[in-house]
């Protein structure tokens, strides 16, 4: 799992971190049940605040990609490794493209709704 953070980017560091880990899970570099690095170790490696890492992990938990357990840290879920992370990443890509094209959230969801029929 390669994590590259660009402090000059407009995207917050915690979101860049979550995106990198989500991508690694989507590509199968981390499998279900595997633990993510400890927040303190990862913060030290990246020279960022430990809260930045924890916030990134919380976002991944809200997405269903990891579970946060007391004493065990962040563990990749079966759903996350089984395709949810890949889907989340695809949605993020689609949203980014819609923004670049100037589509509103309604126009995008309408497109998705049509695709679902």
């Amino acid at each position, binding site marked *: 799992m390669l994590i*590259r953070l660009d402090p*000059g980017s407009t995207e917050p560091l915690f979101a860049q971190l979550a995106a990198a880990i989500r991508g690694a899970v989507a590509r199968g570099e981390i499998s279900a049940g595997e633990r993510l690095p400890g927040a303190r170790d990862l913060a030290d490696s990246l020279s960022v605040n430990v809260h930045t890492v924890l916030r990134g992990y919380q976002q991944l938990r809200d997405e269903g990609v990891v579970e946060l357990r007391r004493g065990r840290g962040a563990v990749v879920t079966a759903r996350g490794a089984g395709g949810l992370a890949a889907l989340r990443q695809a949605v993020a890509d689609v949203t980014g493209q819609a923004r670049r094209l100037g589509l509103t959230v309604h126009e995008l969801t309408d497109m998705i709704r049509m695709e679902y029929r």
Partner: protein
Amino acid sequence: MTTTRSRLVPRTVVAAGVLPATIAVAGAVLIRGWRDELPASVATHWGLNGTPDDFAGPVAVALFVGGFGVVAAAVGAVLAVLAHRDGLLGRSVAAVTAGTTAFVTVLTTSLVADQRGLADAGEAGIGPVPIVGSLAAAVIVAAVAGWMVPPGSERPASGLPADAPRLQVESDERVVWTRSVATGSYGVVVLVAGVGVTVVSSLLARQWWLLGLAAALAVLAVLMYSVTVTVDRHGLTVRGRFGWPRLRTPIEQVDHAAVAEVHPIRHFGGYGYRIAAFGPLRGASGFILRGGQGLVVDRADGRRSVVVVDDAETAAGLLNGLVQQRL
């Protein structure tokens, strides 16, 4: 560097040859000196029930101790000098030679010493003290011999080869690569067999201290069952599942990194923390938990670290990128 080179061979000869030979000869001289206090033949071997079942004259025992040590020292010195350029290999040969000789010498000498004043060697007992004591002596002597041989430092730092993998790292970019690796199925079979054989021998021979050894082996196997490999601004870190063992190659000491195919049995003789005795990675040391692509780090001091891990290519590229960024 030149001074290290010129001192390397004599130090290796002293550690792998002179040290064990001296210990063995000292043991032989002691045993021979006690021959008037000893029975005509001394016990040299004990059965499983703790009674002696093999005997020899004191002079023969002295000759055995001295002869074993001198032959081992001669072979060890030659092998260690041949291997002294290969990283930790010369150091390991010296430690094993000196440690084994110390074990045999101290064990035999202390077992014979206990028989002074006996009329009949058939009454000679055997306790745990000589065995534990000689193991302790072996560990200390092996540590001294290993300390005397500096890790081979004759592979000149070559810098980054043109074909080495490399990831560009921007100056303000924050990067980390991390991956965990678990022992492969062959490795698990080897480890379980090792622990199993020790437990069964302990039960069959009723040597309960062997159970302690089996427990120690099992703990080591669990600690090293899986490791996490991390490449970041600090360098390369390999950490066991429970934080220990932990090996770090600081970024200042990294010359360059590459990827190589690793054959655990053929080149490293097994699984776990290993030193390669054969093959293209001769002298390299590190965690070999399974076969396949490994990350090989050449250090500025000539040592080589290796760890088998998925996606070693990215790890090597990032290390090279981080080294380049520092220049």
